């Protein structure tokens, strides 16, 4: 347990965690101290002067809160007139050379300058002399666009690239109000985490080339999800919106803070995983090449399952625990064999020592916890004998060549339930069989277990115009005892006792549940 200490804010006693600076300590109890340059992951710099607070009987009496540790008995002044005046004056100074081009700025709606103006300044401009002119649109590389005039020179981006990625592409150059962020000549941002500077930027100085001008921040709906790009399971916010007459589309993915998983950041590749969620999706269910309703396809497949002598189910190592148990239960009932063969999901030497992992599967630990076989021999041997093969959204084209896939299933009847085309290779496309277009991870919810054995919930907020079934629904339609999500979750709890205490997946704590090393099969 963290030690608690008592201090006074505007004369009122509050209890805060010790060992934190005033900004962090008071934020936890709901008291805001405005700041631009401080960021918990980057430490205190003290350049913006927005967090100046009064300390009664303190020496000095006015201190930057970011550099001041919370101490027992401290008397912090936030709403005293002289502190309010400082906040007002510093805001006025931040603004004098700011273009205030909010109507065309992507940061509008989530901009600290806007928020603080409303809260701490709110007076008319007194800038009766010409503003400083700087460069407007500058390509910083890595998909980052810079507007020097909007910059408040807080240096968060510079510190991120020096302290976290240690690539140091950016620096603050020149002096006085000519001070600006620049990249070193000929060396723009070039690392796999560069887009984090866009989130870190408290104003609209750094924007994402991918996102800018596409949506206003206030129109975006937010879904708290987990990145399915690799086995790290970075916590993310899926920002999506359904415009009139359009489909519900994701416009960007941002990291969500989780200290025990990804901290405040995520990789650039993870951010771009929204694109395949929007584009090139399977839309229709087919039976022997013609479009048919889902019920027809499931009824057909179900009767084939009953008649088959050997059945192989292939699950995805990125599927949720609920989906995995639903398929597993179906297999137990029908005597089918389940495989999670997915060697191709592992990209050797692609990972690093920060967030990116070699394994591009979101739930391989979950597969292991449920004791689902995943070796190639097991898969090959079963596939050779199988007369019915059902793929549950495993992108087999990552692990095997088109030729290999074609050879394995030459004689087999195939049901391909997938989110995207091409998972079984193009050669299989024309093959008589069935196909089901599935929901993808941004459209369903569930639990996945990351590479460190942390079980995390995620919510799918995207509602597509085309209704698609989830794997649990497909498995249920084929006769799985897990007839719905609740039933699937009950099965998960039976197989993973550490999750037994959570009545629904939603009850999992936000920071996730660390399953014991033993349970995680490590």
């Amino acid at each position, binding site marked *: 347990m963290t030690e608690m200490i008592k201090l006074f804010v505007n004369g009122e006693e509050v209890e805060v965690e010790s060992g934190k600076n005033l900004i962090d300590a008071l934020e936890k109890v709901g008291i805001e101290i405005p700041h631009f340059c401080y960021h918990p992951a980057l430490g205190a710099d003290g*350049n913006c*002067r927005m967090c100046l607070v009064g300390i009664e009987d303190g020496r000095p009496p*006015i201190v930057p809160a970011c550099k001041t540790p919370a101490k027992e008995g401290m008397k912090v002044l936030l709403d005293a007139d002289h502190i309010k*005046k400082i906040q007002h004056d510093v805001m006025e100074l931040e603004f004098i050379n700011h273009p205030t081009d909010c109507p065309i700025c992507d940061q509008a709606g989530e901009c600290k300058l806007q928020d603080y103006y409303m809260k701490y300044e709110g007076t008319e401009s007194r*800038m009766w002399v010409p503003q400083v002119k700087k460069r407007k649109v500058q390509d910083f590389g890595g998909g980052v666009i810079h507007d020097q005039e909007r910059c408040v*020179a807080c240096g968060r981006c510079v510190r991120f690239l020096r302290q976290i990625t240690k690539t140091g592409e950016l620096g*603050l150059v020149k002096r006085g109000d000519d001070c600006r962020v620049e990249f070193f000549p000929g060396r723009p941002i070039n690392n796999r985490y560069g887009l984090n500077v866009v989130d870190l930027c408290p104003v609209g100085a750094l924007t994402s080339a991918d996102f800018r001008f596409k949506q206003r921040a206030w129109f975006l709906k937010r879904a708290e999800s987990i990145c399915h790009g690799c086995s790290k399971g970075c916590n993310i916010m899926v920002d999506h919106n359904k415009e009139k007459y359009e489909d519900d589309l994701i416009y960007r993915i941002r990291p969500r803070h989780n200290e025990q998983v990804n901290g405040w950041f995520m990789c650039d590749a993870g951010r771009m995983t929204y694109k395949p969620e929007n584009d090139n999706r399977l839309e229709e269910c087919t039976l022997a090449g013609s479009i048919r309703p889902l019920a027809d396809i499931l009824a057909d497949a179900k009767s084939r399952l009953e008649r088959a002598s050997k059945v192989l189910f292939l699950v995805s190592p990125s599927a949720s625990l609920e989906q995995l148990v639903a398929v597993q239960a179906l297999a137990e009932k029908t005597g089918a064999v389940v495989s999670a063969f997915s060697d191709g999901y592992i990209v050797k030497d692609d990972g690093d020592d920060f967030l990116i992992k070699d394994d591009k599967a979101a739930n391989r630990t979950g597969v292991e916890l449920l004791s689902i076989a995943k070796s190639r021999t097991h898969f090959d041997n079963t596939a050779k004998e199988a007369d019915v093969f059902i793929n549950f959204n495993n992108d087999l084209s990552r692990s095997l060549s088109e030729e290999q896939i074609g050879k394995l299933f030459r004689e087999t009847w195939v049901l391909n339930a997938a989110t995207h085309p091409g998972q079984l290779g193009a050669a299989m496309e024309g093959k008589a069989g069935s196909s089901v277009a599935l929901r993808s991870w941004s459209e369903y919810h569930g639990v996945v277990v990351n590479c460190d054995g942390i079980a995390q919930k995620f919510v799918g907020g995207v509602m597509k115009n085309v209704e698609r079934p989830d794997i649990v629904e497909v498995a249920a339609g084929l006769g799985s005892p897990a007839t719905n999500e609740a039933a699937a979750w009950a099965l998960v709890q039976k197989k993973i006792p550490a999750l037994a205490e959570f009545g629904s997946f939603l009850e999992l704590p936000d920071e996730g549940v660390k399953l014991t090393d033993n349970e995680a099969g490590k």
Partner: protein
Amino acid sequence: MQEAKILSAKFAIKDSNKLTVAKKHGAYKALDKLFSSKQGEVIETVKNSGLRGRGGAGFPTGMKWSFLPKGLDKPVYLAVNADESEPGTFKDRYIIARDPHLLIEGIIIACYAINSHDAYIYIRGEYTTQMEILQKAIDEAYKAGLLGKKVGKQDYRVDITIHRGAGAYICGEETALLESIEGKKGQPRSKPPFPAVEGLYACPTIINNVQSIASLPWIIQNGAMAYKRYGIESATGTHLFGISGHVEKPGVYELPFGLPLLDVINEMAGGVWKGRKLKGVIPGGSSCPVLTPEEAATATLDYASMAEHKSMFGSGGIVVLDETVSMPELALNLTQFYHHESCGQCTPCREGLGWMEKIFKKIVAGEAAMKDLNLVRELCDNIEGKTVCVLAAACTMPVRALLDKYRDEFEALLKPEPADAITEASAEQE
């Protein structure tokens, strides 16, 4: 009135920057006494002498040394501040160019006192000849065994490295100076930690001004009591006063503390030139609030008197202003300088000084209204005291004094108010 030549004793001697000449006139004599004393005793002597930092802040030198943490296994560094950049200040360059061995001797004393073996001299980039002279003197001292592994055959190592600045005023601020030596952009650090605890390369570091260091040999040789005989109780010893501006005989004069300001201007510097009237005096470098002739008449050259007159003693750079000086233009000149030298790190200074400069430009051009004048006066208060270092205050303090003491001069430049002020206000709204 007579000069008291402690620091400037060898200034008039030909080739005094050469070791043989300097030695003939007493250089390095303090070392014998130094090495026969314990380190603690040296600090005590300097404390007792009342020597205060000569860079501008006037912090007691001995006390600064005693802030060093005890029993650390890190090295202690001495950084000598030779970044003399304050407009109106030109005393350290005399020491460096005319008696560099005095500085080197002082460095040896300071190093011994604080148990340091590595000294850095941070010299401003514009001091090219001075740097060459200093380097030659250091080379000579090494050759003569006065620097290096065994200083003066004693078992004590002192190495001196000169580090040249690139022309930034802010690098005279002690923590920006350290950043610059470390090879970074010269920007002040926020304190705490103070340099005595965590300074150069995160090691305990003492930063002293050239003149403070150069005062040490005399103090060690003659004792604290002898030094205290110069000056007054609260400000002991002598100071090199650089008198410039509108006087008949500008130059550097070494004088004890406590002398009447006007007497010094009149008797040493020959008074206001061309028989003109005095308009004001900047007593200790450009960041010190200006004194009116009435204030100058009662002020004496020491810390307490200058504080009483709501100014500062500063660096001893006295700038005399005659009746022809335009105070609005002076204010513009000052803000131009400080705006240009603001490092750009923290918001109030970065944004505020440029704003002030533009408003003064408008005032001097005769295009400003009363609201501009009131705004720039308010900005002095809004900026000061909110920053990481005191550069912003170094601008706002003298500017505030100019605005308050010579307000009518600024008002005289304003655009005449329109007959109907309401019309203007409504016109603005449109």
